[in-house]
């Protein structure tokens, strides 16, 4: 075991050494994704090894079929593990966990102390937080889908996505496509993107979470200048950056997110708008990918869904990350709408 850990650290250190050389030369997007995924897995393994002696905690589960107490492993067991003890239905449909009735917790985040646990699906009486987590996850998976969808000769640099606003009608990812300065996507291309998204979500992949140090995060996103410029401000609060992994795609998000991509049901990528930066910003233009999705199991007839889709085609009024002053009027309207 000890030898194994040493070996891992060796490879980790080795990786750290080669990054300095890697950062200087061009990384194809697939290489960058693989490298990030590799680093993520190494760090995850290291964190699990770091737990040391396994301690037990008591989780008081509240909900159907009946309240019960589970004895779980501290810093290892996740709410997802608790759900697996209950039933397959719990494991599949739970999107978020609610600890002690106040803290919303990811399904794949290890539990740190004894607490009470409620599992939240999309039909709970007060689903605001679950909806937000769903919308955030949709944005993150959209990023994964966009990086996978383009050919190798088109570099894709993800920029960011704003906080979830469901009333705005669409989830967003702002993406930098430097080799496509004037791209107008056809309907066929949007369909292809949607199909790519559906294939990704149908794989039923868990959305894993990991808190890493600022230094490691910088190394992971060394090929993406937008992300690496955002990391210092994200890490300012506590020196940690929260990463999420879907398949091989690793991205930064504040969280919490839903447990599994299979919980994303009916969806469509509706439009791609060009947003231009202000004169003083470094980035001159970004593409705003917009889509709309519903959780699995929500039955909505195609007419109602077409209304939602038509609305998602309009440019989302969320604040532009590169030109924060342009959309203020529309933003105020959306605030008035949500009030």
């Amino acid at each position: 075991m000890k030898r194994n850990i040493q070996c891992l650290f060796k490879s980790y250190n080795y990786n750290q050494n080669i990054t300095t050389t890697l950062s200087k030369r061009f990384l194809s997007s697939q290489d960058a994704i693989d490298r990030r995924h590799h680093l993520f897995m190494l760090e995850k393994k290291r964190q699990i090894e770091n737990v040391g002696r396994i301690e037990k905690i008591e989780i008081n589960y509240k909900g159907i079929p009946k309240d019960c107490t589970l004895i779980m492993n501290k810093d290892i067991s996740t709410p997802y593990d608790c759900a697996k003890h209950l039933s397959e239905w719990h494991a599949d449909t739970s999107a978020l966990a609610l600890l002690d009735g106040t803290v919303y917790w990811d399904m794949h985040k290890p539990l740190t102390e004894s607490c009470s646990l409620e599992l939240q699906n999309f039909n709970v009486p007060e689903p605001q937080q679950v909806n937000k987590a769903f919308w955030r996850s949709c944005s993150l998976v959209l990023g994964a889908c966009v990086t996978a969808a383009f050919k190798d000769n088109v570099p894709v640099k993800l920029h960011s996505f704003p906080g979830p606003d469901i009333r705005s009608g669409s989830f967003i990812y702002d993406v930098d496509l430097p080799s496509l300065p004037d791209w107008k996507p056809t309907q066929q291309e949007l369909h292809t993107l949607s199909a790519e998204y559906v294939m990704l979500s149908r794989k039923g992949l868990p959305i894993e979470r990991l808190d890493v140090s600022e230094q490691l995060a910088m190394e992971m996103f060394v090929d993406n200048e937008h992300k690496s410029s955002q990391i210092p401000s994200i890490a300012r609060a506590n020196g940690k950056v929260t990463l999420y992994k879907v398949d091989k795609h690793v991205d930064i998000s504040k969280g919490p997110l839903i447990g599994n991509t299979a919980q994303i049901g009916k969806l469509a990528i509706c439009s791609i708008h060009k947003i231009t930066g202000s004169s003083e910003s470094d980035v001159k233009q970004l593409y705003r990918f917009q889509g709309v999705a519903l959780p699995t199991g929500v039955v909505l007839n195609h007419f109602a869904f077409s209304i939602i889709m038509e609305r998602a085609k309009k440019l989302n009024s969320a604040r532009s990350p590169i030109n924060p002053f342009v959309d203020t009027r529309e933003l105020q309207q959306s605030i008035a709408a949500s009030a």
Partner: protein
Amino acid sequence: MNQADVTKLVSKLRIKVPPKHRRLSCPEGPEGRLNKLRKTVTGLIKYERIELNYYRGDEARQYAERLISEAINHGDCHKPTMEMADFWLLEKELVHKLFKVLVPRFENSNSAYTRMLKAPKPAYGRYIDKAVLELRGNPYPSLQNKQTNNRQLLQNILLDAAKYDYRQVKYAEMAEKIEKSEEPSSVKTTNIEHN
């Protein structure tokens, strides 16, 4: 001409009654069919929620509805009703339940007394429609998801926002129209003043 109005003699059920009964293939013939249905009606009154084949459930439902409506209309001192209850309920303590529990429960209701829902079919095996037959007001948790009216559900938030947007567009159009219609009229009034 002094014929009684048939609709007043037979209690009107609040469910759809097909013109012909189902024969429910049975080796003992019509009598076997009735025995089957008696068992089902007894089970329904006893357990309040049962799962069974759709056709048998639909057939038994009509007899159960009729039995409850007769019991409500005539009460427990009416001999034919009592005989009917005695025939349909194989366990005799259920006769007490019918008159003392179900009649007060359904006296003032203005919907059907039973509810029938389609049950999921098994993935493999014979293709037979299944149904869940239950008495309304039973103590079990609801089978239907009643929260579709919850405005906080994701689909409802999206639809509400779309509705709001649509209305805003319509209001803007109306305001434009009013402005246009006001302009010519104001011109006219000024003309009149000149005259």
